[in-house]
């Protein structure tokens, strides 16, 4: 992917924010949310190449798009989530709907369909999920039967139901996953095709302005050239191939929405006077409701960016990384929004302030594109293999790298991060010795610890770099303090929770508790309060009232 440079990205984000400021003030978003209304005209404008042309970013240049890199698209997704997660979801659904074509389509199909989406500004939808097949796509029941003419397959007749389809009722075309005689396959189905219909727009908890429908396919005929890739049975691998990338985009949603909630809370804290001073100067308030979220969100950002750069450098798949990014960022965003309501007190609980809506909206990021629990399983599965293949050295080697990092840059908490990875390694090894991964609960908790440890390591690498990413909004002192806060928390969490997990499921092996390094991890907690106070002061300074 060619991609843009940081100036071009900055200009696009400015254009997007300016559009939102004019066209989507909070009162309008609140109305759309209340009335469960899909803003079709807004989506048209977002896709209008004279106004924004946002959809062109995901389409390669050779098919009439702008060929944005993964990093570019992450930045736009984050900015969209700052504006409104429902609008973001509608844009994203087109990204997602065109992905099977981009990844699995023949050259001719890519030229035709991607060119058409670019030129005719089409909204797309991604139809994988079914009433009885969500995360478990193997349970797929939509069928595509051959239509044979003159001894050749002329097309397919598709029958089945799709559930929770973003843009389902408004998309100009949908890609539909169906079981063909040769196995699961993707088909392009255009709006208005006979037998293809959408049910009513769902009445959802959040992202209410994003159109979500069930789709019904009743003996829908599509010509053979609408089979993506031209070969049956590629559907699941085509779906899998983009997860690293698409989950990164949902991670960006969690990041953007989480920060939007947190920034609102910080701005409020500067204005709200309580017992003689602003809340932003109250240690108990800031260290509970603000600082930990900033640290977690920035750690997730570091991991997202690391993965985006690797995808842009040509790495394929990165499913485990995409899942780590999604798990870390969306859970951090959800928690930040929850505490933002608390931070605004009674005001936070009303619809006059946006945090209540952000909280309802951001919850979806922990569910769609794979639930957090599916992410935990995927992460554990992926890294467990690495642990076994490397004979237990996978995380030890990363810990050693963090030790070296700490030697050259002692201010980011890489020593705590190294302790976190070593503790994780011991926990994984203990689980192997005692065969504890036979418990589903154990595997999922391991997935959580792995995600936390790896985001922590990525944060340390980013915070010790010579040049910071263009996305860092704080000075080095603040960003490194946030990194240390996160590293300390991660080390203690993994050590204590991991020990509890192993001992709860198995037996106490001699030496296990000592091997976790609890003493060293506790020693590293020194200075935690000072760092949090520094972060509190800097965060309050960084987000002034508008």
């Amino acid at each position, binding site marked *: 992917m060619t991609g843009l*440079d940081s100036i*071009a990205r900055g*200009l696009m984000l400015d*254009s997007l924010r*300016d*559009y939102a400021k004019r066209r989507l003030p909070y009162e309008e978003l609140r109305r759309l949310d209340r009335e469960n209304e899909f803003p079709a005209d807004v989506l048209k404008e977002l896709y*209008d190449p004279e106004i924004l042309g946002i959809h062109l970013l995901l389409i390669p240049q050779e098919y009439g798009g702008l060929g944005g890199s993964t990093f570019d698209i992450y930045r736009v997704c984050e900015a969209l989530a700052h504006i409104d997660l429902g609008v973001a979801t509608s844009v994203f659904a087109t990204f997602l709907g065109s992905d099977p074509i981009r990844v699995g389509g023949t050259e001719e199909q890519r030229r035709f369909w991607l060119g058409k989406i670019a030129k005719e500004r089409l909204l797309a939808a991604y139809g994988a999920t079914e009433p009885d097949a969500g995360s478990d796509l193997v349970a797929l029941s939509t069928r595509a039967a051959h239509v044979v003419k003159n001894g050749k397959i002329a097309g397919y007749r598709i029958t089945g139901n799709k559930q929770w389809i973003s843009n389902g009722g408004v998309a100009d075309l949908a890609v539909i996953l169906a079981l063909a005689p040769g196995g699961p396959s993707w088909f392009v189905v255009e709006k208005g095709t006979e037998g293809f219909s959408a049910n009513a727009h769902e009445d959802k908890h959040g992202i209410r302005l994003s159109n979500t429908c069930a789709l019904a396919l009743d003996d829908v005929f599509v010509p053979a050239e609408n089979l993506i890739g031209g070969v049956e049975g590629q559907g699941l691998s085509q779906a899998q191939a983009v997860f690293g990338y698409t989950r990164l985009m949902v991670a960006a949603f969690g990041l953007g929405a989480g920060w939007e909630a947190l920034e609102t809370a910080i701005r409020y804290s500067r204005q709200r006077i309580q017992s003689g001073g602003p809340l932003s100067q109250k240690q108990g308030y800031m260290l509970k409701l603000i600082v930990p979220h900033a640290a977690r969100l920035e750690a997730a950002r570091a991991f997202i960016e690391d993965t985006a750069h690797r995808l842009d450098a040509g790495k394929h798949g990165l499913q485990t990384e995409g899942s780590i990014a999604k798990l870390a960022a969306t859970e951090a965003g959800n928690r930040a929004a929850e505490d933002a309501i608390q931070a605004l007190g009674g005001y936070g609980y009303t619809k006059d302030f946006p945090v209540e809506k952000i909280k309802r909206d951001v919850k979806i990021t922990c569910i769609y594109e794979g639930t957090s629990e599916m992410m935990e399983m995927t992460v554990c599965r992926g890294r467990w293999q690495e642990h076994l293949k490397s004979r237990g050295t996978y995380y030890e080697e990363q810990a050693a790298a963090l030790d070296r990092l700490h030697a050259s840059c002692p201010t980011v908490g890489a020593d705590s991060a190294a302790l976190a990875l070593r503790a994780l390694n011991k926990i994984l090894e203990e689980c192997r010795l005692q065969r504890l991964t036979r418990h589903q609960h154990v595997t999922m908790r391991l997935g959580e610890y792995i995600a936390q440890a790896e985001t922590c390591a990525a944060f340390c690498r980013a915070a010790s770099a010579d040049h910071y990413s263009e996305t860092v909004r704080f000075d080095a002192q603040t960003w490194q303090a946030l990194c240390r806060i996160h590293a300390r928390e991660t080390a203690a969490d993994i050590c204590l929770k991991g020990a509890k997990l192993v001992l709860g499921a198995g037996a106490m092996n001699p030496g296990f508790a000592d091997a976790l390094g609890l003493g060293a991890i506790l020693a590293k907690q020194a200075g935690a309060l000072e760092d949090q106070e520094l972060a509190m002061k800097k965060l309050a300074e960084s987000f002034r009232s508008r």
Partner: protein
Amino acid sequence: MNPMKIVVCVKQVPDTTEVQVDPQTGTLIRAGVPSILNPYDHFAVEKALELKAEHGAEVSVLTMGPPQAQAVLRLALALGADRAMLLSDRLFAGSDTWATSYALGRAIRKLGRTDLILCGQQAIDGDTAQVGPGIAQNLRIPQITFCDQVEIEDRQLKARHHIDDGHEIVQARLPVLCTMTPPQDYRPRHPSFPRVVQAMGKVLETWTALEIGAEPGMIGLKGSPTQVDRVYAPPQKEKGVVFTGTAAELAGRILDILQKENFLTP
């Protein structure tokens, strides 16, 4: 006839109308404040592009600043400008409005024949409103300041020049320099994504002091006669008093005041 050549002079400024001043040094604190194209200049770029759409013209954008000032040139290119020049050189550092006007004037000379130069009325960081007029003086061409409208017909420019209580229509023959004042409800226009990408392929040159033939003693700190003594918020202008009445009554009241305030004592 050759197409008209328009040059727009722009500046990258911190995005805030409440810039904080360092109490020790008296300079602006820019850290952490995002940079934008000076809104007055943004308006000047849009006006130049309107004239281009109407008459056909080549629009060049010119700025002086550090390498990161490229961002505002790229914005102007994305909005539709044809080429952009960045004057960037350590020798320019510390230039005041005098030295800046000289350098920009030299760069415009290097560009060759120029029919119209547009500037914003002032930059929102320094608020001097001196650089536009300074360029006109350097180039020895007429200037019309604080314009919200410009029209061109037969190489004759007609501009609406703002004054305190209204406006004047001023005419001048090209070449001329106008400083532009946006209307109250002005909102800068932003480019679409495809236009941002198109701008990546347009000409953006960086010129050094040597390349514009600037004399070393005329630029940078050496070429800057201004010494900033201190920066402070000026006291608010007191409100005037309006009297009504006949001429005789008013003359009497004014005389009273002049006497009371001791203006008439010899």
